[in-house]
C-alpha cells in the first residue's frame, strides 16, 4: 500500500509588488508517491520548496491546488486531521528550536504528547522509553538533560531531541527536514543508524529532506531532485549518484565536497531567479550549461527514460 500519494500539488504564496499580484511558486505541480517502509530523499537548492512540500504533506500548510493521500485516504482540502492520523504523520522541523516550547523542560515536551496519544500505560513507562531513546541518541546520562529547558542545550542536542520526539510517537510516515544538519559526522552516524533501524522495524515511510547528497543517497531508497518548485528528476538513490541525468543534478553532484580529491565542478551560471511570473520554458534554462533553443520555449515534462528513472529535460530526452 502507498503510504503517501501526492497528485499535482501546488503551493503559491501571494506577493504584492507595485499594486500587482505576483506569486511565489514554492511547490508547482508535484506528483509522486511513497510506498510503505520506503525512504524517499528530497534534494535541491535552498529555497526550492522542500520544506513547503513537507508542510503540505504533513498538513501544517494548506495547498493552493492538488491532492494528498495518506494510506489511500484523502487528507488534503483541510488542515484538520483525525487525532490518530495526526499522530501517524510526524514532521521533524528544519529548525529544531521550533519543536520545543521554551516554557517547558524538554522532558515535559517529550512526555506530554505521549500522554495525549496514550502511548505507554503510565508515566513511568513513558519516561523509561524516553530515557532509552535519549541514551541511544548519545544524550547520556539522560537524567542530565531531561529537566533542562531548550535554551540550556547545545544546538545539536536540541536537534537530536526533536528527532526523538517524532520517533516516540511511532508514526507511519515521517518527514525529516534537514534533521541532522547540526550534527557532526560521528554523532550523525549514530543518530542516522538509530533512525534507520527504527524505520525498518516499524515499517515507517520517510521523506528525508536534505541538501547533502552523500547523506541523502546513503539514507534513501529513491531520490527526488527539485528545482524551483518542480521535480526535475526521480530515480533510485544509487542510480542518481551513478548516473545523474538532469543537468542540475549533475551540477549538484559535481559540487558535492570530497575531502581527498578535487572533483571538477561543472560551472553554473548566475543564481536562482525569483520566479514571479509563470515561466514559459524550463526553469533551469538560464543557468543551464547545456541548454538548447526549445528549452526557453517549452516547459519539459517529467518522462521515464529508463525504468524508474524520470527526468524533466529536453536535452536528455
Amino acid at each position, binding site marked *: 500500500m502507498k503510504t503517501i500519494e501526492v497528485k499535482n500539488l501546488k503551493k503559491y504564496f501571494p506577493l504584492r509588488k507595485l499594486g500587482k499580484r505576483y506569486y511565489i511558486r514554492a511547490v508547482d505541480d508535484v506528483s509522486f508517491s511513497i510506498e510503505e517502509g520506503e525512504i524517499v530523499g528530497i534534494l535541491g537548492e535552498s529555497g526550492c520548496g522542500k520544506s513547503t512540500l513537507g508542510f503540505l504533506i504533513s498538513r501544517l500548510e494548506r495547498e493552493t491546488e492538488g491532492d494528498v493521500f495518506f494510506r489511500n485516504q484523502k487528507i488534503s482540502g483541510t488542515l484538520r486531521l483525525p487525532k490518530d492520523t495526526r499522530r501517524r504523520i510526524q514532521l521533524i522541523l*528544519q529548525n529544531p528550536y521550533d519543536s520545543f516550547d521554551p516554557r517547558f523542560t524538554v522532558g515535559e515536551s517529550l512526555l506530554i504528547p505521549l500522554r495525549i496519544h496514550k502511548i505507554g500505560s503510565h508515566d513511568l513507562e513513558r519516561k523509561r522509553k524516553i530515557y532509552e531513546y535519549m541514551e541511544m541518541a548519545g544524550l547520556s546520562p539522560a537524567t*542530565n538533560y531531561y529537566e533542562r529547558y531548550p535554551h*540550556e542545550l547545545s544546538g545539536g542536542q536540541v536537534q537530536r531531541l526533536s528527532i526523538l520526539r517524532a520517533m516516540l510517537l511511532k508514526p507511519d510516515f515521517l518527514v525529516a527536514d*534537514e534533521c541532522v544538519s*547540526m550534527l557532526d559526522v560521528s554523532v550523525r552516524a549514530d543518530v542516522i543508524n538509530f533512525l534507520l533501524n527504527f524505520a525498518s522495524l516499524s515499517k515507517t515511510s520517510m521523506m528525508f529532506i536534505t*541538501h547533502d547528497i*552523500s547523506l541523502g543517497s546513503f539514507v534513501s531508497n529513491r531520490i527526488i531532485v527539485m528545482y524551483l518548485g518542480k521535480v526535475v528528476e526521480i530515480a533510485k538513490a544509487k542510480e542518481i549518484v551513478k548516473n545523474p541525468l538532469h543537468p542540475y543534478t549533475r551540477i549538484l553532484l559535481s559540487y558535492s*565536497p570530497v575531502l581527498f580529491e578535487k572533483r571538477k565542478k561543472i560551472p553554473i551560471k548566475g543564481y536562482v531567479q525569483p520566479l514571479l511570473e509563470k515561466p514559459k520554458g524550463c526553469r533551469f534554462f538560464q543557468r543551464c550549461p547545456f541548454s538548447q533553443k526549445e528549452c526557453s520555449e517549452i516547459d519539459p515534462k517529467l518522462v521515464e527514460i529508463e525504468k524508474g528513472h524520470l527526468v524533466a529535460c529536453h536535452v536528455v530526452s
Partner: protein
Amino acid sequence: MKILKVDKLSIRYKLKEGEVQAVENVSFEVNERDVVGIVGESGSGKSTLAYGIMKLLPSNAYFKNGRIYLFGKDILKIPLEEIRKNRWKKYSMVFQKSMNALSPVHRIGDQIKEALTIHQPYLSQDEMKKRMERAMRMVNLPLRVLKAYPHELSGGMMQRTMIALSLINDPKFVIFDEATTALDVVTQGQILDEVKKLVENLGLTAIFITHDIGVIAEICNKVAVMYAGKLMEFGSLKEVIYHPLHPYTKALLKSHPDFLKPGEEIKGIRGALPDPLKSFRGCVFAPRCEFASEMCFEREPEEISVEGRKVSCFNLSEVSK
C-alpha cells in the same frame, strides 16, 4: 597582527543539578586574515566558546578562569559600554540559532537597516540602501527578501540573511556558528567564495564553527578540534585534517562518509561524551580512545605545543604509527 588570543579559558554553566564544564582551559590564537575552523562533537563547547568571545553568555554562565584578548583588549575587563560600541560593528557573529534571531514582526530590510543606523548613523539613506542591496547580492538573495518577514523565508534564506546582517557594518572579525548548515553545496560554495574575497581584499578574520569538514577544507587555514570542552588539537589545515595527531581527530575524520565509497556504512565513535556535570580524572577522551593506556585514565595529558601546533595526548608515538 593578533586579532584574538584566548588564554586558559574556562566557562561553566550553573544548573540546579550542578555545573556544566562547557569550556575547559582552552588556549589558542587567531591572527589577521586567519580563518579558523572549530570542529568537535555536538555538545563539546564550541558555541559556548563563541558566546564567551562575544561576551554574550546567558545569565547562568560564568567565566571560571582565563583571559580573552580581542583586538588586544582584555574583554573580560573592559567596560560593557565599549563592547556595545564595537559588537556588531568591529566584530560580529552569526548564531547557530539564527532562525530565531530576528524579530518576527518586522520586515527583514527594516531590521538590517536598524543595524546600520545604530552603528553608522552618518550614512545617507541612499548609501544605506546601496549597502543593503550589496549585502543581499553577496549572499545570493533576491532583493524581495528585504520586504519579507522572517517566517516567509526558507531555512537557508534565513541563514543567508543572518550572514548578510553580520557583515553589513564591514566588521574585521566574524564568528560563523554553523552558519551554512541549511545551504546546498552550490549556494554554500558561492558564499564561501564571497567570504574568501573579504579575507583577501578587506583583511577579514573569521572563525567557522562547523561539523562540515568539507567547509573546513574549503575555507580554513587553521583548525581547532574540541572535545568535551577541551582543545584536543590545533594547527594548520594541512596538519590537522590531512595529518591528524590526536586519536579523537583521527576517529572523527574516519567517520566522515566519503562519498566515493558507496555502500560502506557510516560509523560513529563508540560511546558518548562524558557527563559534563562530573569532573573526570585523566584524559577526557580516554574511555572512547582505542589507544588509551593506563596512564590516560590517571593523569591529564599536558598540551604539547610546537611552532603553533598543539596537541594533548600521551600516546602520540603509538598513534602516529
